[in-house]
Structures are given as C-alpha cells and as structure tokens.
C-alpha cells in the first residue's frame, strides 16, 4: 500500500484557519490500512480541528466523508453533493487522491492532511516498511524477491557495500542490509551463482527520472 502519516496539527491548522466550512475527506484503501486517513482518522481529525477552533472562540463546520478511494474520478464525483456547502477541502488521502480532488474541483482550495511516504507492506500491524520504489523495471526475479532499489540505502545493484555490519545497514542498526537479505535468500534457493553475475547500469528512464509516467491500455480505454 501507499503509506502516509498525518501532518502535525500545527501545519493542518494553518491550512484551515482562514475557513469556516471544510470538507474533510478520508480514503477507504491504503491510508485506512496504515491508520492515517480512513474513516476513523477522519473522525479523530475532525474532532481535533473543531475543538481547536472552539478553543479560540471560532467555529469550524466539518463535513466528514470517506470515499472508497480518492484516486478514481468516479468516487471523487460523489463529493458534488457536498462541495458547494464548503469553502475548502482537506484530504486525508495520499498525494494521488489530493490531486484528483483538486483536478475535479478547480475552484476549491484543497489541502493535504497527511504526508505521503512510501510504497510498502505491513511488517506487523502498526509497522510499515518501504518495499518498492516504482522503478518501472522490476528485478525481483534475480534478487530472491528482495528489492535493492528500495531497500538498499545506496540502491546498489551489486552490493553489499563495505559498511554492512551484522546484517544491518551502516546508517542505522535497525535497517536490514538488503544485500545480506538477498544473499541469504539466494543461498536458500540454491542460487549462489547468481550473486556473481554483474547487474549492469540501470536504465532509469522507466523510473521517475524519465519524466512523470503514464500507462495507457487501449483495450480498456
């Protein structure tokens, strides 16, 4: 999922202070899984914002809506019933959702309530870790299912570097050395020989480096 963390209240309050009526929109997918912007978090943030305003003798009208997801126009369209009754929108979705709302409702200010972080998976409930960088040319087949682009601090494709210590990355003893993990997995799979095959310089065009990307499926358009 795409992970996110709620922005500090100070920053969010700065966004909404000029307004009297806002639409607070949550998302039922990724940000629900990582407990950052689902229906519950919408309720929590709404309460916090209203109380912050009331404490200052002001009122904030918060309309709470949680869409199935915010990255599809069909769902964002559902907001038309509410949009004219508010002055601004505060979205708890990832950056994709925030932008989709901004695209659809061009004359309404839209603010992000969360900081979108990374594409990752749950290590366990409450702990999410980065797994994928969206490089566009997946090499997981040759690295035993562990991605060095996302999980090696230096994104080495022929690691490990000389700083690998006890299976941990030199920058932080809590970060696994991706290449230690890869080597261990290659051994488990009997693929040690793979290690010495040199992975050539990557073509980063398939990644964000080639410019913002687009997928077109003509069979679905």
């Amino acid at each position, binding site marked *: 999922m795409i992970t996110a963390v709620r922005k500090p209240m100070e920053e969010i309050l700065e966004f909404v202070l000029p307004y009297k009526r806002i639409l607070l929109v949550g998302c039922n997918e990724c940000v629900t899984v990582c407990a950052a912007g689902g229906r519950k978090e919408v309720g929590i943030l709404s309460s916090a914002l209203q109380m912050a305003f009331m404490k200052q003798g002001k009122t904030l009208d918060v309309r709470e809506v949680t869409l199935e997801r915010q990255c599809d126009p069909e769902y964002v369209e559902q907001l038309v019933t509410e949009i004219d009754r508010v002055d601004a929108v505060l979205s708890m979705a990832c950056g994709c959702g925030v932008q989709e709302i901004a695209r659809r409702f061009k004359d309404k200010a839209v603010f992000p309530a969360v900081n979108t972080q990374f594409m990752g998976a749950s290590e366990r409930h409450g702990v999410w870790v980065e797994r994928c960088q969206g490089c566009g040319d997946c090499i997981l087949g040759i690295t035993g299912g562990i991605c060095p682009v996302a999980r090696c601090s230096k994104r080495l*494709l022929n690691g*490990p570097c000389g700083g690998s210590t006890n299976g941990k990355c030199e920058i932080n003893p809590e970060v696994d050395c991706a290449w230690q993990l890869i080597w261990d997995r290659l051994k488990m799979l009997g693929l040690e020989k793979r290690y010495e095959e040199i992975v050539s310089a990557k073509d980063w065009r398939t990644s964000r480096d080639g410019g913002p990307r687009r997928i077109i499926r003509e069979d679905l358009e």
Partner: protein
Amino acid sequence: MVTESALEKVLAAGHLAVTSECGPPRGAVPEKIQEKAELLRGYADGINVTDNQTAMVRMCSLAACIYIRQMGLHPILQMVTRDRNRLAMQSDILGAYAHGIHTMLCLSGDHPYFGDHPMAANVYDLDSIQLIQMVRGMRDQGRFQGGDEILNAPKMFIGAAANPFADPFELRVARLAKKIKAGADFIQTQCIYNLEKFERWMAGVRERGLHKKAYILAGITPMKSAGMARYMKNKVPGMDVPDEVVNRMAGVSKENQAKEGIKIAVETIERLKTVEGVMGFHIMAIEWEQMVPEIVESAGLYPRPQF
C-alpha cells in the same frame, strides 16, 4: 602496460607499490593539498585524493588532483557514485585525463547520513561495479556508457576498494571477483589490523586466482593513540581491530603511543610482504601524512623505483 599510469609502471615491473592518501580541504585552500602532497614526494607511486569523504563537502577530488599533477606528482582520482550521475562522472574523467591523470579509484561512497548534508538527494545512478565497467568500456572500446564514440578516449588504470572485514565475510571474496570481472586493474583494501582474517581472505582470493588478475595493495593506517584504536574498533563500520592491538596501544604511556602505532604499522607491512598476492601497500595516514616517509623507510620500501 595498458595505460600511462605511474602506478601501473611500478606494478608491471614487479616492484611492491606504495600509494598514500590526501584529503582535500574544507574550503578553497589549494595550499593545504599542496603541502600534504609535498610530504609524500618520493615516497609514494600514487597519491589518492578522496572524494567528499564521509559525505562531507571538500574541494573536489578532480581539482585537488590537478594541483598535485602540476607538482609533478601522480594523483589517483577517487570517485564516488553517491554525488554524480553517469554524465557528470564521464565528464570529470575526461577532464582528469586531459590533465594527465591516469589512475582512478571507483567507489560507491559513504551514505550522506554521516555527513554534513544529510538532507541532500542521493544520486547513486551507478554503483561502484557499474562505474568500473563504465570506465573500462571508455578505455577498451573508446565509447561513452551511452554508446557514442569518445574523442581521445581516456585510458585509466582502474582501481577498486575491497574490505575483507565487512559483513558478510563469506561474500567478500565473491565481491572482489565481481569487481575484477567488471574490469578493476588494482585493489586497495581497507586498513588491516586483523592479520589472521586478512590472510584467510587472501587464501580465498588466491584459490580463485584473483591475485593474478588484479594487483592487490594492502591497506595500512598507523594508530595515533589508544583512543583512536578504540574508536576505530567500536564506532567505524567495516573495521576490524582485534583486542590485542588496542591493548598493545593502551599498554604504552600516552607520549609513546604514536611511536607504538608506527611500529605496529611497519610490523604489519613486514608480515604482509610474506603473504602471496600482496603487491603493495596503501598507506592512509589521514592528517598525519608527515609520518608516511618514516613508515616507508622503516619498512624497507625506500627509495621508490624511478622510471
């Protein structure tokens, strides 16, 4: 001889080579690099110039190498892949070669986390092995990494670093094999204090004939004090300092610790001379360059062969 590198000349002629190292200044002060290099004149076949070492901004290695070349000495351009993409690296290599620099060391580089700009975006367009491949391609095929022909293609004598002491140990010979397969001509190892472990690594290296495919230079760093020994043992990743070394340093009075450190360095060199496959020494005496001449002389490596 594949290049005009002074280091290659010494090694190809069968002599034990000596290289040393200078760190450029944290400012636009060329005198600092000139002073350090002058201390090494006549004592080293090549002088490494570090590249934003430990991810701290310093005068660029290329500029410092040019100053050293202009002094009639032989710099070794260190290049890390952390700060430059393949365009910038090839561009710098052309510049270096144009200035008569024929030797370089290819590294990935310490993570910015450690440095003075942890907020910087990392580049890491290539890793060290891909950089070696690229530089080798420039030399052998006369082409840029992207495929186009180079005018007066640079012929670099290509070095790589090896760390027999990093984890996992079982991979360290395989990693060396990869770097040599990618095209490395010479290797400089991390500084050695654990001779037993180093010799185990060399046994693995020799078993695969790697010592015949690339010249291996053993890394030597003299300890200045017992405190330095402890720091390197506990705080530096990828460094192996046995207790005996720390105890030996601590067992001497403070005023004599520096001398003891030099003694240990010279003894290490003498012992490593007997290890088959060791073709020279890379003496890193950071901010203590003035001790290099004494170490080189005491280890019987002076005078340096002249060509």
